[in-house]
Structure formats: structure tokens, C-alpha cells
């Protein structure tokens, strides 16, 4: 193997994600291909990890850093030490077995690409958690696992149970993840880095910090929700709605281990305080007891295993909370053991479910006769779970017992701990026994619809392999698990490793007595409760306290009742109050700083008063006020007034030395007016009547006064603000850079144009893209447009003309219109080439003199639209082929091409270049790549403007058809509606 170890890290992390993408696109019945792919991916990861083992053996660490945002301390940092290696190996190895199992478990009707794709992506996310060397990155993968867990629990989304379970798991774990993110941010702030190495090295600093407790609580919230610890344990039983391979993989072997992994990982930095012992220890102890107790009373096999998982994770958490190095040894050991026996038990439960069609312990019985091999395997695994000697569960449990006997805080709880855990362990034994006794022993099952038999060998194989691991670890621990455990301990505890023994026989020690008491007590409990268990619904005492019900109530209260009351209180679906709020907020935001800092309005005027300018603005202001006044009942007049205000704005631009703006404003003003005129046709007639509508007059006028107040305040405020700014000296802004470099760097003398097509060309590129999108949206919206019934008939004026024409024998319909338009038609025909030439002229001179792509494009569009006005839609489109979408496409491609072209010369995107060329007759002509860019802008603006105008203009043509003829010529209508 020549691959460097750093590369192995990347490949191990990337392979599952890549596999996930491939799995997603395979056909939906490709069960074998999916299984081969997923199996190959996980097996490859196993091999790669095995190859890298020598590097991390003995406390070594493989690191790989990719700089991302170094100034914020954010790097993509992969880090594998012994502990991470053990977890990663567990993830990929069990992943491989689960894939193999799932191949036979999933039925041919299930859409398997989704399943394997999510499963592989989950594997990648889980590897991301254990291999992250940066805490922010860890949080990212942490959230990813929550997400894929959600998707996998909800895999059979046709059942409500799966949807609810998935949602609950997502909400609980992601709320926890969010808290953890906050905790990690504080932690990073305390340490000054998110680097795991640095965080682990600054334990004393963290523990002494005043924010230690909130940090710890927040991070614990994340870890405890993920590991389903009390009081957040209730999501795990609900998650059992997932397919069994998912339960085996995510909800027993890997994802729920994420929480305890993080606790062990951060123990050197966060542990060693009373808060740690009490918070972590009590959560673990309660989960351990509660899980074991409730598990005994479950009737669903998977429910029993789920509560048992909560209980075992509680055991691990309790060990971590005991806060001694030896306890961490036991925690890591039990973490590995639990993954093996619990995954195999889940698989066995899945096999039984698969073969019998039920998971109800009351209905199952005597299956030993039908599936002896599965029965034997399950019995061994359950014995490991119960802590029977010669199996791996016994060893780690013995360590656990020994650790509880040790004195830690010497409180009453600490002293009574051995007795409490022994009692809880009795229940562990009892439910393990119950699982086996009720499923495999007793009389043959009666109520089953089919006769169960052994599953295919390959479905049993993963279970067998895991059980073999349980046996080997249980019988020869020092040869099998010993080195791996030592490797993991090196990473967590450093060089000081406490003395522990992996032997199976330590003599007649107190912990051995505890084990014996637990086993005999467990058998006794089962025998006593046996008849009660078969009729019981849920555990006694706790039957009525159900976590998920409380959760549902809280959820309904927050997301439904509270949200609705808030919406009733604060929300409105009406636009006017919303806009009113927006303006009031803007007003406040504008006025508040003036009050806070005071404002001196009166500066010194920098230009002298000009009567002409004042007169122009008298007209402009009057136009604006008149438009506001006439907007409701005289739309046409209002439109003319708005045009007047626009023209005054345009003149002001000329006056204020902004020739480019003036040109653009003039052209845009024209087009906007035409556009609005076209729209007027579709609005309802509104005739003024007094008193208006049925709204009470007083109500109406009070509303008007309020709006008037807001309008006056906004206008006045803006006037004061602009006066205050204009009468002050300008600060030295970045404008100087543009002025100084427009010619030397951009090769143009029109600074505004150089900014647009050169310095800030990327902005312009985005801007014209928006313009194109808007044009397409306009077109798309209008294709489905159905006018209101009263707007469909031909307008009054036109129908009068038509009636007159038809009444006269010498005239044909439409003659009046034709004769009225004869002169304009001639003029427009003559002016068309002139306008086109002007547009080209404006485009070409743009770089040096006022002009440019925007104004040229709109001018060109004006030329087209004038033809439409003078000749009508039909004639124009018969004689002139305008392809607006092609114009737009060409424009976008050209601008993008100019941008990409810079790459050929190894310059950044959109770099420009220019030179001067001597052309006969014309002289020295500047040739700049920016001109090509401007040409693209021009083409796009032409296309977009024409597309919008034509799309609206076409509505007239479409709606004039009567409904009957529309039906007969549906194809023709749609053809016309297409803008050619």
C-alpha cells in the first residue's frame, strides 16, 4: 500500500458519501447491485482502516488539514487516534454486516436505492463525527446523522407510526444538537480554538472558567439526547418504526453511541468536577434503572431491545460520570461489547419478524423447533446482554460492578451504588431471559399465518459473526479485544493507563458475587412475574407517565396553540397593515439614530440656488402629488403625471452631471409608460361615487389621515436626511480608486461605464441574469393568464369605430383605425433604422462617452415596440422576426464567455483587457474585451425588454377570440402565444 495515511482518511470519509450518490441513481429494483455497492464501500473502508492501524497503535495520530477559513480558526481537519479508529472500525464493520443483512431483509417492493443511499450517507456522517478534529466540523456531521436518522426512520413513510417516530427523533436530537452547537461555540471561545487537540489540552482553563457550567449543560444536552438518556430517552422506542437493519445499525450500534463517544472524547477537557459527576452520573443511573425496568414489561421485541439499549447506554453514561480513568476503560469496553450483542439481537428479532410476521412476545412461542440455528445465536447474544460468564457482556459488566464498589465522592448515593446497580442488573437478566424464553421455548405458536423456517444463510451470517465475536471476546479477551482496547485507551487517557485486567476469572471477588446475585435474582424475578407479564400492558407504576405523550403535548402547545394565538395577535394576511408596519419600522430605524446622536441639519450649501431648477422641481413635485391624488379614479392621468415626475428626475440627472443616468432614465421611462399603458386595459373600471363603498366614512378618513401622516413623515424625513448629507463635505470613499484607475486599468474614460463593465462586472453579470429571469417569469405567468370576464370584449372606443365602419357600405371593418394610424406608421417605418443606429451608436461609444449596453438595449427595444404600436401585433410579427429569448440567451452566453475567456489567459473570472487599433478612415479605436461584455448586456436587455412588452401586448390578441373559436383553434392560439 503506497497510499499516504492522510489520503486514507479522506478516502474513508468520502467513499460512503460517493457510494450514497451512486446508490441513489440505481434502478429501484436493483437489490443485488445496491447491496454489492454498499458492501464493497464498507468493506473497502474496513480494509483501509485495517491498513492504517499500525500508525495509530501506541498513541499515534493521523492528521489531515485542509485550510478553509484559517482567520476564523475553521479548518477542515480530520484526525484519527486510537479511540476514533476503534469507533470508525465499529461503524464500517457493523455497517458491512448490516448491508448484507438488509439485502435479505428488504422486500422486493421496497424502493431500495433510497434505503442504501441513506444508509451509506449515514455511515459517512458517522465517520465524520468520529474523525473530526475540529469541533464545528463535528457538529456539522452530528446534525447530518440526525438528518439521516430521520430519513431512515421514516423510510416506510406510508405508515403514520414511521412519520411520527421520525419526526420525534429529529426534533429531540436536533434540538439537542442545537444546544450542543451553542455549547461548542462557548467552549471554543473559552479555549480560543475549535481544534480538538487544543481543547483537550486546556482542561484546567475550561474548568476554571465562569462559563463552565452553562457550557457543560449545553454540550450534555446534545450528548444525552443523541444517546437517548433520561429524560430524553422517549424517542428511541418510537424510532423502532424503522426497518430492522436501521434499528440494528443506527439505534443500537452506532448513532446512539455518538453521545457517549462525545462524552468520553471531551472527558479530559470537561470531566473532573462535581457538576460532571452529578449531571452525567445521575442521567446515566436513572436511564440504566428505568430502561431495564421498562424493558421487562414490553410486549414488542424491538421495544424490549430499545429500552434495553437505553439501559445499557445508561450504564456507559454512568461509568463516564463516575469520573475515574478506570471507569472510562470500562465505558469504552462496554461500548464495544454492547454494539456486538445488541446489533445481533436486533438482527435476530428482524429475522423472527420476517419469518413469522409478528414481533409480539405474547403471540410468539416455541420457535426453537423451527429455527434452531437462529435460536442458538440469539440465546448466546441474549446471554451476553445479561452478563453471563464466558461472554463479552460479563467482562465489561464485571468491570462496571468493580467500579461502582470503588469510593468516589463518598456520598450516600455513592455508598449505595453497588446495591442499586445490582438490583437494576436483575432486571437486565430478567428481560434477557424473557426474550429468549417466550420466543424460543414453550409450545409451538398457534396464531401464526405461516410456518416459520430458517432464513437464508447470508441473512443469518451477520448474526453468527457478531455472536462469534461475543464468544471470542468473552473467552480469550486478552488475545482479541485487548490490543484494541489499549489503543483506544492510549488516545483517551494518554500515557497514564490504570491497571486493569481482562482475565475471565479474578477469583471470588465482590463483583463476581454481584454478578451471581444479579443472575439468580433476575431468574427469580422472571419466574415470579411470568404470568403477569403475559397480560400486562406497559410497566406498572410508570404506565401513565409516558415521555412521548408529554412531548406531543408540548409540541402541540408550542407549534399549534401558541403559534396560532401569536398569529391571531400579531399576524395579518392583508397587505396594507403589513406595508404600514414596514414603513413605520423604517421610519423608526431612520429617526432613532437622529435622536440618539442628535443631528445638525443646517450645513453649508455647496451650490448656488438656481431658479430654473426650482421651477422644474415645482412641476415635478406637482406631478408627483397629482399622481398620488388621481391614482384611484383617473389611472391614465396618474400615469401621465408619473411620467412627468420621471422626466423631471431625468432632467435632474442631466443637471447633476450624470449623463448616463439621464439617458437610461429617459429610455426606461418610455418603456415603463408603454408597459403600464398596456396593463391599464386589464383593470376594472372605477367610477367615483360619494360616499365611497359601504365602509363608514369616519373609519375611512381616520385611516387616510394615518397614512397621510406616515407618508408626510417618510417624505419629510428623507428630505431632511438628504439635505443634511448634501450640505456636508464628502468623505474620502472608494470612488477615488475608480476615478484614478478607470483609464489606466479599464481603458475607458466614462468612469460609470467602466465600473459597470469592468470593475464591478460580476455585479452587472448578476444584474442582467436577474433581468433575464424576470422576463422569463413575466412570460411564464402570462401564458396561463385568464382575463376577468368584463375585460374580454373589445374596448368601447374600438367597437364604436368598428360599428361605424360596418354601417358604411363604402368602408371595411378597421378602416378608421388604419387611416388614423397611416401617418404614424409611415413615421415609425422611417424612424426604425434611425433608432437602431442610435442604439448601436450608444453601445459603441459607451466605454468613453455617455451611453452603454443598458441604455442601448432599451433604445433598441423601443424601436421594436414602436413598430408594434404603429402596425399592430400581427403585421409586425409577419414582417419582423424578433426572437427575444435568443437575444437573451446570446447575451448571457456572451457575458459569461467574456468572463470565462479570461481563464485562458490565466486571469481571474471577468478580467478585462484593452488596446488601441488603427482603423483606416476612422483612426485610433479602443478595442476592449469590456466592449464584448457590454454587447452581451445590450443583447440581454433588448431580449428581456421586448419579451416582457410583447408578452403583455399579446394578451389582447389572445383574448379577442371568442370562447368557441378558441376551442377550435387551440393549437393555433398556443402557437401565437408563443413569442417567436
Amino acid at each position: 500500500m503506497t497510499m499516504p495515511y492522510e489520503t486514507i482518511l479522506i478516502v474513508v470519509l468520502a467513499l460512503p458519501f460517493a457510494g450514497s450518490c451512486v446508490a441513489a441513481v440505481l434502478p429501484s429494483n436493483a437489490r443485488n447491485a445496491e447491496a454489492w455497492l454498499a458492501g464493497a464501500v464498507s468493506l473497502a473502508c474496513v480494509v483501509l482502516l485495517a491498513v492504517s492501524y499500525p500508525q495509530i497503535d501506541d498513541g499515534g495520530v493521523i492528521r489531515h488539514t485542509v485550510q478553509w477559513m484559517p482567520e476564523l480558526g475553521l479548518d477542515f481537519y480530520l484526525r484519527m487516534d486510537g479511540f476514533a479508529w476503534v469507533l470508525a472500525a465499529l461503524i464500517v464493520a457493523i455497517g458491512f454486516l448490516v448491508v448484507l443483512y438488509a439485502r435479505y431483509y428488504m422486500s422486493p417492493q421496497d424502493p431500495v436505492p433510497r434505503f442504501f443511499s441513506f444508509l451509506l450517507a449515514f455511515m459517512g456522517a458517522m465517520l465524520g463525527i468520529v474523525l473530526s478534529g475540529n469541533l464545528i466540523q463535528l457538529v456539522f456531521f452530528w446534525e447530518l446523522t440526525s438528518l439521516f436518522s430521520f430519513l431512515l426512520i421514516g423510510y416506510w413513510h406510508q405508515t403514520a407510526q414511521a412519520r411520527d417516530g421520525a419526526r420525534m427523533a429529529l426534533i429531540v436530537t436536533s434540538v439537542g444538537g442545537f444546544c450542543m452547537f451553542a455549547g461548542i461555540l462557548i467552549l471554543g471561545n473559552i479555549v480560543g480554538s475549535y481544534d480538538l487537540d487544543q481543547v483537550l489540552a486546556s482542561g484546567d482553563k475550561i474548568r476554571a472558567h465562569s462559563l463552565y457550567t452553562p457550557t457543560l449543560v449545553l454540550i450534555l444536552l446534545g450528548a444525552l439526547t443523541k444517546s437517548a438518556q433520561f429524560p430524553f430517552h422517549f424517542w428511541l422506542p418510537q424510532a423502532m418504526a424503522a426497518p430492522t437493519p436501521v434499528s440494528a445499525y443506527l439505534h443500537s450500534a452506532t448513532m446512539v453511541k455518538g453521545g457517549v463517544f462525545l462524552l468520553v472524547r471531551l472527558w479530559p477537557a470537561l470531566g473532573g468536577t462535581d457538576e460532571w459527576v452529578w449531571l452525567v452520573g445521575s442521567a446515566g443511573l436513572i436511564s440504566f434503572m428505568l430502561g431495564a425496568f421498562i424493558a421487562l414489561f414490553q410486549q414488542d421485541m424491538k421495544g424490549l431491545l430499545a429500552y434495553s439499549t437505553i439501559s445499557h447506554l445508561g450504564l456507559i453514561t454512568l461509568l463516564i460520570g463516575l469520573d475515574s480513568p478506570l471507569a472510562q476503560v470500562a465505558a469504552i469496553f462496554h461500548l464495544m461489547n454492547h454494539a456486538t450483542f445488541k446489533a445481533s439481537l436486533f438482527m435476530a428479532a428482524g429475522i423472527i419478524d420476517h419469518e413469522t410476521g409478528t414481533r409480539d412476545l405474547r403471540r410468539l412461542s416455541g420457535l426453537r423447533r423451527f429455527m434452531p440455528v437462529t435460536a442458538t445465536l440469539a440465546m448466546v447474544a441474549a446471554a451476553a446482554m445479561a452478563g453471563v460468564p464466558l461472554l463479552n457482556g460479563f467482562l465489561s459488566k464485571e468491570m462496571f460492578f468493580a467500579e461502582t464498589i470503588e469510593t468516589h465522592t463518598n456520598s450516600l448515593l455513592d455508598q449505595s451504588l453497588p446495591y442499586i446497580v445490582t438490583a437494576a442488573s436483575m432486571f437486565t437478566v430478567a428481560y434477557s431471559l424473557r426474550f429468549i424464553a417466550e420466543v424460543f421455548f414453550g409450545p409451538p405458536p398457534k396464531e401464526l399465518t405461516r410456518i416459520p423456517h430458517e432464513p437464508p444463510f447470508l441473512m443469518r451470517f451477520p448474526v453468527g459473526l457478531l455472536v462469534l465475536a461475543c464468544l471470542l471476546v468473552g473467552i480469550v479477551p486478552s488475545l482479541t479485544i485487548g490490543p484494541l482496547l489499549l489503543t483506544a485507551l492510549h488516545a483517551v487517557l494518554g500515557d497514564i493507563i490504570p491497571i486493569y485486567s481482562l482475565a475471565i476469572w479474578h477469583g471470588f471477588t465482590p463483583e463476581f458475587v454481584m454478578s451471581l446475585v444479579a443472575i439468580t435474582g433476575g431468574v427469580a424475578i422472571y419466574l415470579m412475574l411470568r404470568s403477569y407479564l403475559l397480560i400486562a400492558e406497559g410497566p406498572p407504576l410508570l404506565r401513565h407517565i409516558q415521555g412521548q405523550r408529554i412531548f406531543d403535548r408540548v409540541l402541540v402547545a408550542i407549534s399549534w396553540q401558541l403559534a396560532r394565538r401569536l398569529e391571531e395577535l400579531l399576524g395579518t394576511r392583508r397587505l396594507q397593515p403589513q406595508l404600514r408596519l414596514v414603513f413605520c419600522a423604517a421610519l423608526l430605524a431612520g429617526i432613532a439614530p437622529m435622536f440618539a446622536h442628535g443631528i445638525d441639519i443646517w450645513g453649508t450649501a455647496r451650490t448656488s440656488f438656481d431658479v430654473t431648477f426650482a421651477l422644474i422641481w415645482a412641476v415635478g413635485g406637482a406631478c408627483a402629488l397629482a399622481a398620488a391624488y388621481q391614482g384611484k379614479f383617473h389611472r391614465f392621468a396618474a400615469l401621465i403625471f408619473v411620467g412627468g415626475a420621471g422626466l423631471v428626475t431625468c432632467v435632474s440627472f442631466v443637471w447633476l452631471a450624470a449623463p448616463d443616468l439621464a439617458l437610461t432614465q429617459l429610455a426606461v421611462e418610455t418603456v415603463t409608460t408603454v408597459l403600464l399603458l398596456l396593463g391599464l386595459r386589464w383593470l376594472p373600471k372605477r367610477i367615483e361615487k360619494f360616499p365611497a363603498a359601504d365602509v363608514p366614512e369616519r373609519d375611512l378618513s381616520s385611516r387616510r389621515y394615518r397614512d397621510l401622516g406616515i407618508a408626510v413623515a417618510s417624505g419629510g424625513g428623507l428630505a431632511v436626511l438628504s439635505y443634511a448629507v448634501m450640505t456636508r463635505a464628502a468623505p474620502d470613499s472608494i470612488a477615488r480608486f475608480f476615478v484614478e484607475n478607470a483609464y489606466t486599468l479599464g481603458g475607458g474614460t466614462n468612469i460609470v461605464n467602466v465600473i459597470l463593465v469592468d470593475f464591478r462586472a460580476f455585479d452587472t453579470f448578476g444584474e442582467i441574469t436577474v433581468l433575464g429571469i424576470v422576463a422569463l417569469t413575466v412570460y411564464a405567468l402570462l401564458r396561463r393568464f385568464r382575463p376577468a370576464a368584463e375585460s374580454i370584449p373589445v374596448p368601447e372606443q374600438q367597437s364604436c369605430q368598428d360599428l361605424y365602419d360596418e354601417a358604411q357600405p363604402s368602408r371595411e371593418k378597421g378602416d378608421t383605425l388604419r387611416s388614423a394610424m397611416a401617418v404614424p406608421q409611415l413615421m415609425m417605418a422611417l424612424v426604425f433604422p434611425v433608432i437602431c443606429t442610435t442604439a448601436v451608436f450608444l453601445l459603441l461609444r459607451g466605454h468613453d462617452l455617455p451611453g452603454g449596453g443598458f441604455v442601448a438595449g432599451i433604445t433598441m427595444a423601443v424601436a421594436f415596440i414602436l413598430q408594434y404600436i404603429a402596425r399592430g401585433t400581427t403585421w409586425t410579427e409577419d414582417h419582423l422576426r424578433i426572437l427575444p429569448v435568443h437575444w437573451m440567451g446570446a447575451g448571457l452566453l456572451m457575458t459569461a464567455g467574456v468572463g470565462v475567456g479570461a481563464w485562458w489567459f490565466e486571469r481571474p473570472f471577468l478580467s478585462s483587457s484593452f488596446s488601441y487599433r488603427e482603423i483606416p478612415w476612422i483612426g485610433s479605436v479602443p478595442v476592449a474585451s469590456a466592449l464584448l461584455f457590454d454587447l452581451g448586456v445590450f443583447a440581454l436587455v433588448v431580449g428581456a425588454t421586448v419579451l416582457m412588452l410583447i408578452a403583455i401586448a399579446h394578451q389582447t390578441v389572445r383574448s379577442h377570440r371568442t370562447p368557441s373559436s378558441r376551442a377550435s383553434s387551440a393549437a393555433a392560439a398556443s402557437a401565437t402565444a408563443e413569442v417567436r
Partner: protein
Amino acid sequence: MEIVLAIGIGVLAGSGVWLLLRPRTFQVIIGLSLLSYAVNLFIVAMGRLKIDAAPILGSHAADNINGLPDPLPQALVLTAIVISFATTALFLVVLIASRGLTGTDHVDGREP
């Protein structure tokens, strides 16, 4: 000059805001136009007023670059003009489509 322009901006903006708060769609659309005039002028005014020199090099003494008006707000406003045209067009189409669908030109899609 400053006082005239300031009052002008104020009147345009005030009329625009008043129209935007009205219940009919056409009023809102022309209100938006008026407000965008005001805002465009306001942005140009942020570069202070220069009357006799366009931001074009070479048309006057090249060494006196301090005499040029600020080109940056002008470049910003140039695209703003075009974009506000696009916004107006989009809004107009929404307006007539909503009128066709709901049968009313009230901004809420139904008469109060």
C-alpha cells in the same frame, strides 16, 4: 440647489409612500415608481452635488480628478433604474394575473 433637490426627493417619496399604502394595485405600482425615483435621486445625492462636470475623463483638466462627481452612486443607480423597470413589469403582470384570477384589483385579492 440642495434645498430644492431635498424637497423634491421628499415630495416624490411622500407621494410614493402614500400610494403604496392605498388599497388598489395600480396605485401601489405607480407608488413604487415614484418611490424608486426618490431613492435613485437620494443615492446620487449621497455623492454630493456637482453641476458642471460629468464623470468622464479627458473632457476637462485630467489632473483635477477632485473636480469630478462621484461615479460610484451613479453606477449603482444605473443598474437600479433597469432593475426597477423589471420589478415594475413583474408587478404589473402579477397585478393583471391577480385581477384575472380574483376578479378584483384590491391588493388582498378580495374586496374588504
